[in-house]
């Protein structure tokens, strides 16, 4: 099936073309949804086949196919489709040639399965969630969603950085289009931000990161003479550490933008302006993990640049902690989840930054399951409440929407890190990696985990437990979501529950091999040879102890939240009153948006105003003065023109006319007149010659 690798991104692209071109006019809703889902599900099946094919690459290599190169040692297959950019020879004599090629190795295999698998479920869910939209919007939505899938798969499969970058930009575009899906609606009344503004904010913030990505790409190109990922990684060992650090940091800037790391995280909460399936698919499960993916993909580069790796870890840890603390005070159900996403992405970066790339990818996968589930569950809640998103106006929903409640509870426990759900294993692996690196990083992660457990419990309690705080009108319409939405929830719940079991660490189950670690080993250990990684002596006791600690931390978080929001609801208010400054800071998301407004936007606007003033008064003034001078001069010159110049011109004209009257009479039109004149001329010339010549 590996030969059909190219088909995986093409199928959603076809779906995009069909829905985009024919959907609004010619297709029924059922057909639109069918096409979109079929494209993604087929793509998932193909991916599964291809990933299974990774197991017996030797057979593929033996079969041999044009364009398909196989490296059974690294479990990697690369499919070169066509030459894309033929840049000729560079000054250094390197033949720059960039192919459009896809690569499949364990890392991209996991991404592939997560993207297509979660993507399929969310597509199916969306057919139910978006059912009330007008048909053109319905078709547009699925066309964008399919385009997103195609681009995300291009990103994941790209064998060289330019192809990855195409996908990178493509998902950015789709994100923009889908955040601004309700482009005619207001997103945030308080700040007068429309949905289209939110899309723009996401796009522009991402662009800052993209500049970093591009620069990093070009730096690597100039240093190694190739853009092929494997080619770069093979040469990393020969590069100076400083250059590696620079390239790694530049790429990390791009990853920060895409994966919403501090300080470029500001766009993600506002990205919730899009429909909920979009939030689930793009802004939780897949696209935002692209940054983590790229960092893991370039793992040998980062290993070779310890400073960059440390930066990744610190940024990740800080993001994990701060975003979680912001999540404490949000009242919009989707915003809580958005900050939770930022925080979890921070965890992944932390994992990558401490050198536990496998743990980062593991968490990426489990997070995709439970965060998609949370978002879809939130969508189901919002759907049930006719669009209400404020958790202060919810409560007691557990009775009314049992399926949503049950699945949401699984996701809550999973993200909280309760054994044996998915989140526990992946988070613990990251924390273990952080501990090996530095207890401070571990502390950051643990604090983040505590806050995560706290705010998720708060959210869960406020939504599903306690008094019903919505009005009768809403209660009247309250209903469980249709089956097409519930079934994906159930499947995701199963995955959130059991998804972590592929990576059970050896200390818990000595007999069962850590499947994921073994699967990923060829990717992360291929180029690791010769690079010293600090690994503490393996201490099973310590690892188990830390696991217990983090589990306790999570339970404490949940307990406190339970006390605060269920037992004694007056406590949070008192706490907010006693720590007013901190509370306000958290409530206002640490004023980061305001900071950007003051530090970046205000000077920018001031500069704009100054330029406008300069333009209006100085530039325009000069131009106008020139105009008046011209006007005055031209009055003078008109008079001069009319009498002196025209007089002269007319005089010339009259003279010419008079002279030409004479000559016209000579032009008889009779050939012989001309011949006579010629003869006369010749006679004169000959006479002159004969009479003046000396002898």
């Amino acid at each position: 099936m590996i030969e059909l690798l190219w088909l995986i991104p093409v199928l959603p692209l076809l779906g995009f073309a069909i829905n985009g071109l024919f959907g609004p006019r010619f297709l029924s809703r059922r057909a639109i949804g069918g096409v979109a889902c079929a494209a993604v599900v087929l793509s998932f099946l193909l991916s599964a086949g291809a990933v299974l094919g990774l197991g017996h690459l030797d057979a593929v290599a033996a079969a041999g196919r044009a364009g398909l190169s196989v490296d059974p040692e690294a479990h990697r297959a690369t499919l070169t489709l066509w030459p894309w950019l033929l840049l000729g020879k560079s000054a250094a004599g390197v033949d720059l040639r960039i192919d459009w090629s896809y690569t499949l190795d364990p890392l991209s295999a996991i991404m592939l399965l997560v993207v297509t698998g979660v993507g399929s479920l969310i597509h199916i869910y969306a057919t139910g969630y978006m059912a009330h939209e007008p048909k053109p919007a319905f078709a547009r939505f699925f066309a964008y969603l399919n385009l997103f899938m195609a681009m995300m798969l291009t990103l994941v499969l790209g064998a060289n950085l330019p192809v990855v970058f195409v996908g990178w930009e493509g998902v950015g575009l789709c994100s923009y289009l889908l955040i601004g899906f309700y482009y005619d609606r207001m997103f945030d009344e308080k700040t007068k931000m429309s949905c289209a503004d939110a899309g723009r904010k996401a796009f522009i913030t991402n662009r800052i990161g993209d500049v970093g990505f591009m620069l990093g790409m070009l730096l690597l190109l100039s240093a190694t003479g190739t853009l092929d990922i494997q080619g770069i990684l093979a040469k990393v060992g020969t590069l100076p550490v400083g250059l590696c650090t620079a390239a790694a940091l530049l790429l990390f800037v791009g990853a920060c933008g895409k994966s919403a790391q501090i300080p470029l995280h500001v766009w993600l909460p506002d990205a919730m302006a899009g429909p909920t399936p979009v939030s689930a698919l793009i802004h939780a499960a897949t696209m935002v993990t692209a940054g983590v993916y790229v960092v893991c993909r370039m793992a040998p580069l980062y290993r070779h640049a310890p400073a960059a790796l440390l930066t990744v870890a610190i940024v990740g840890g800080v993001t994990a902690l701060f975003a979680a603390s912001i999540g404490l005070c949000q009242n919009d159900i989707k915003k809580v989840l958005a900050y939770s996403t930022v925080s979890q992405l921070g965890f992944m970066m932390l994992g990558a930054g401490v050198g536990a790339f496998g743990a980062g990818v593991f968490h990426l996968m489990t997070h995709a399951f439970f965060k998609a589930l949370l978002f879809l569950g939130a969508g189901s809640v919002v759907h049930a409440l006719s669009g209400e998103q404020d958790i202060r106006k919810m409560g007691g929903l557990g009775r009314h929407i049992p399926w949503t409640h049950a699945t949401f509870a699984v996701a809550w426990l999973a993200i909280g890190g309760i054994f044996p759900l998915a989140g526990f294993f992946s988070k613990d692996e990251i924390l273990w990696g952080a501990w090996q690196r530095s207890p401070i990083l571990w502390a950051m992660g643990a604090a983040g985990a505590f806050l995560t457990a706290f705010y998720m419990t708060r959210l869960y309690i406020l939504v599903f437990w306690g008094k019903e705080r919505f009005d009768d009108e809403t209660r009247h319409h309250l209903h469980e979501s249709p089956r097409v939405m519930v079934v994906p929830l159930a499947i995701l719940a199963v995955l959130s529950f059991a998804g972590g079991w592929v990576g059970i660490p050896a200390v818990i189950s000595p007999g069962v091999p850590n499947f994921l670690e073994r699967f990923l080993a060829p990717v992360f250990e291929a180029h690791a040879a010769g690079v010293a990684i600090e690994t503490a002596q393996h201490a099973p006791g310590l690892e188990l102890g830390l696991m217990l600690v983090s589990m306790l931390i999570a339970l404490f978080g949940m307990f406190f939240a339970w006390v605060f929001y269920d037992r004694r609801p007056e406590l949070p208010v008192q706490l907010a009153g006693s720590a007013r400054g901190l509370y306000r800071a958290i409530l206002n998301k640490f004023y980061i948006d305001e900071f950007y407004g003051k530090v970046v936007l205000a000077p920018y606007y001031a500069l704009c105003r100054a330029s406008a003033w300069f333009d209006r008064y100085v530039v325009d003034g000069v131009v106008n003065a020139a105009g008046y001078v011209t006007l005055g001069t031209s009055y003078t010159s008109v008079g001069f023109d009319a009498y002196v110049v025209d007089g002269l011109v007319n005089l010339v004209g009259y003279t010419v006319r008079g002279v030409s009257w004479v000559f016209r009479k000579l032009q008889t039109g009779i050939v012989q007149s001309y011949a006579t004149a010629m003869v006369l001329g010749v006679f004169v010339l000959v006479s002159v010659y004969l009479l003046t010549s000396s002898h």
Partner: protein
Amino acid sequence: MTASAAIFYVLASIAVLSGFMVIGSRNAIHSAIYLVLTFLSVAGIYVLLEAEFVAAVQVLVYAGGIMVLFLFVIMLVNLEDSLEDRIRLHATISGVIGLAVVGLILYVYSTGRLVAVTTPSTLCQGGNLQAVGTSLFRDYLLPFEVASILLLVAMIGAIVLARQKS
């Protein structure tokens, strides 16, 4: 005065007189006949000047080919009209120029520049035809071929111009 000189003067006189008749005849047919006479006289003078080949060509091309052409055209346009009025102004100017030319020739003669020098001829050694042929086909082959192309072009052009438009 030798016999050949006498023949030259006689032929020259005939040529000049018939030349006058060419431009003076009322009838274009007569002009053509006088033209033939002129050409034949000139051909005789060529013979006297030891250019037998050119004389032969003169007779063949001019007196034969070109004259037939003239006669054909004269008959085609079928003019019954005879000597039309001369263009008076041109006649006057021409007369003045002619007198002036005679004056010039006399002046030049008086300065002694028209000295007659007779040199012995080497042209006819081995035969004039052979000599001209050798020169034409060895030294002037390219111009010869170009001339043939010129004639071809002239022929096509004449056909195109004279074609009866339907």
